[in-house]
């Protein structure tokens, strides 16, 4: 484990370095508090630190305060080294954010034991962070496909529309529905249906840029948000995405399957006063239009939003590909 030693006293520093190297630590030794803060606040900086109290520029307690203030990811376990043995000094040191203190001259066995305590706490913190991240992932992602779930993708759509309005940049919304999915489930079974959805999700994710969004909108429906996608590129991008599923058979445990999808596409930078729900209704209507036109194709929303809103199941998309 990596450990930082900050001490302006060369003898103390050398003693600590040697003791900790022998104990198996990867040691980084610095002679003042400013450099210590710099290292401890790095993303991959040491998570264990031994800080001398008295140091030029920034003393040990000040290092603790700076690290606690700046560090927003990953806990740093800090031990103050001091020859100040007064109770008030110890209270001050711990009050600055230090986790522990050791009186100089230190006993090497005691030092190692205290560092092991620090490691245990860091390990526990790591497990807690991992558990929190797992919970966060489960709360925001679909368990079958690992894509964003409906709540998150709709929320992202709202944010993206706000950004698009504010910055006057075009955005494309794609609603994809796997064709004849009920038939796959009925004839091949739900496990094969799940495999198809997983593969479709994987291909959709691979077909977009890192800053686009893909989410599972419903059973076999996926919502894609293409940021900064201009009117010329949108149909081409939508076609490429459609083909990622139709052009290559999906390998399932029941054998290869030909799977296609129909897609409703809405592309604009003039959002007007439409709500997210209204936009989703429009793109949903376009997707149904693609289904009605024979499936495995793309259908674009009509420019006049009121027309679509009046026809929940439109039969006439503005344009249909292929």
């Amino acid at each position: 484990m990596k450990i930082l030693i900050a001490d302006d006293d060369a003898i103390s520093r050398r003693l600590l370095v040697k003791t900790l190297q022998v104990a198996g630590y990867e040691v980084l030794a610095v002679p003042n508090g400013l450099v210590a803060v710099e290292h401890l606040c790095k993303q991959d900086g040491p998570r264990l630190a031994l800080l001398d109290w008295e140091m030029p520029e920034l003393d040990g307690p000040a290092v603790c305060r700076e690290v606690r203030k700046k560090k927003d990811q990953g806990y740093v376990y800090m031990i103050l080294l001091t020859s100040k043995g007064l109770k008030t000094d110890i209270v001050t040191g711990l009050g600055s954010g230090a986790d522990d203190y050791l009186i100089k001259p230190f006993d090497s066995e005691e030092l190692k034991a205290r560092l092991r305590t620090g490691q245990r706490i860091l390990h526990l913190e790591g497990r807690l962070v991992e558990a929190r991240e797992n919970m966060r992932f489960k709360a925001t992602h679909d368990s079958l496909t690992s894509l964003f779930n409906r709540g998150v993708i709709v929320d992202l759509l709202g944010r993206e529309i706000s950004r698009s309005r504010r910055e006057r940049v075009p955005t494309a919304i794609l609603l994809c529905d796997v064709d004849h999915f009920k038939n796959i489930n009925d004839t091949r079974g739900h496990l094969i249906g799940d495999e198809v959805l997983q593969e479709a999700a994987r291909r959709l994710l691979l077909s977009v840029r890192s800053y686009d969004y893909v989410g599972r909108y419903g059973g076999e429906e996926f919502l894609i948000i293409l940021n900064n996608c201009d009117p010329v590129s949108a149909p081409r991008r939508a076609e490429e995405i459609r083909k990622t599923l139709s052009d290559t058979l999906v390998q399932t445990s029941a054998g290869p399957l030909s799977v296609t999808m129909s897609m409703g596409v809405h592309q604009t930078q003039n959002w007007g006063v439409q709500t997210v729900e209204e936009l989703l209704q429009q793109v949903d209507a376009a997707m149904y239009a693609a289904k009605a036109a024979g499936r495995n194709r793309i259908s674009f929303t009509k420019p006049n939003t009121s027309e679509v809103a009046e026809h929940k199941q439109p039969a006439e998309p503005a344009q249909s590909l292929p």
Partner: protein
Amino acid sequence: MKTIATPSVLNIKELLSRVGDDHELVIELFSIFKFEFPAYLQPLTDAVANELPRQVELESHALKGMLLNLAAARAAALAADLENLGRAQKIPGMREVLTEFQSEAQILLLQMESVEFQT
């Protein structure tokens, strides 16, 4: 290995137990001290001469830490006396303690020179 010199101003036994009987490290620590000590002593001497108690406190505190790490208890105690005088802003007496500290430090340096380890 057997220690053949254990000067009284320098508790070699204690120092060795602290460093896991690492003779090479002890020799290295002594050479660091010999190199670093003048750079610590000069500002302390200046602070006493210029009657700057806060400076005396800081410089002697640093020396105290160094000397404690080397198990040089007598010199460390004198450094602690200087630190306390500085903290209490008691200028009278500082010069005398400094003189005593300087001579103790000279003895300590000589004893460090005399330390050798035999296999």
